[in-house]
């Protein structure tokens, strides 16, 4: 059974590795362990380097960031992830409306920067932000290769026995809160007020 990463991770040197049974993420009951996470990061990093991309971002269908490489857009990708997930979901609905099973790629061409969003294993999406020095053909080729490698990792996760994963996820979960801890969190979230007590 895997164990969750503790706070010590924040102080680890780049490139250093955790024990192989360490759970890195719980992706809707798919547990991503350390070796898989490192492979996944490696694929994103290679894609980012090969395309000199401003950002390579892997998200789930709910719009949550799983991993990213490239700092060309700062470090907060929350809004980008949410919009890309919604965009892909809307595009897939459009596909169904016109009798297609799916449009698996979205490409937005800008004057200097472009965005390429593609499906990975029907549950995740790969988002690339790149500049006009790279041709779309090269992007498509690299994305195709990266997607195949990522899908191989996710297939491994999906093929694991589900009951064992649920049990491991539950054991590693930080969500064993007490009522008092929940109430403390909620009480702590207070509006900002000025000196006159107004919001």
């Amino acid at each position, binding site marked *: 059974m895997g164990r969750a990463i503790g706070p010590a991770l924040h102080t680890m040197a780049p490139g250093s590795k955790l024990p192989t049974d360490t759970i890195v993420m719980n992706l*809707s009951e798919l547990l991503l362990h350390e070796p898989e996470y490192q492979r996944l990061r490696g694929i994103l990093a290679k894609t980012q380097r090969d395309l000199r991309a401003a950002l390579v971002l892997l998200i789930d269908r709910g719009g949550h960031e799983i991993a990213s490489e490239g700092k060309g857009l700062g470090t907060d990708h929350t809004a980008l992830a949410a919009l890309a997930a919604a965009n892909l979901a809307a595009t897939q609905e459009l596909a169904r409306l016109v009798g297609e099973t799916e449009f698996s790629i979205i490409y937005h061409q800008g004057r200097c920067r472009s965005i390429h969003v593609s499906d990975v294993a029907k549950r995740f999406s790969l988002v690339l932000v790149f500049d006009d020095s790279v041709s779309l053909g090269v992007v498509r080729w690299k994305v195709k290769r990266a997607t195949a490698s990522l899908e191989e990792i996710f297939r491994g996760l999906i093929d694991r026995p589900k009951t064992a994963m649920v049990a491991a996820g539950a054991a590693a979960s930080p969500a064993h809160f007490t009522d008092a*801890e929940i109430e403390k*969190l909620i009480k702590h979230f207070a509006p900002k007020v000025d000196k006159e007590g107004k*919001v």
Partner: protein
Amino acid sequence: MTFINYVAHEINCKIVYYGPGLGGKTTNLKYVYAITSPENRGKMISLATETERTLFFDFLPIDLGQIRNYSTRFHLYTVPGQVFYDASRKLILRGVDGVVFVADSQEERLDANLESLSNLEQNLKEHGFDLNTIPYVLQLNKRDLPDVMPIEKLQKLLQVKGEPVFEAVATQGNGVLETLKAITRQVLVALRKSA
């Protein structure tokens, strides 16, 4: 579906504000944005028409604070309330952890509330969720308007399962924070149950 990132020490949850058109869903989010410190909120995204009606969704990520050394990040979404945007509403419910139903208290909007509630139940079902078990809060908004229905009557007609009910005037912020805190509590309790 709650997304736990053990590396970043984050618990990410998705809350959707649902309800009839012009009921005050976007106003709820705008108020939360206004009262939250910049360090605890991200960018608010509104995909709206020229007349400021929600076309696809509004999105606001907020950080409620730490619990057990984990940051609790809540992604707040609204759906477009107008009936003909049903396809968009369905998409936004994907992976939802909790729902706030923002009802319009005006007498003339009762049928719109009931229709939207029925639509919510149906759309949740299509994603494999059950309104009877998902974290859920009812907000009775626009209590400052002259032709509003009595609370007891609205509650009898709109309350689904004994969920918490809050009176609100979202334009003034009344009831907005209480609603958010109530749905947060329910989502965290549900997450604990699944652990």
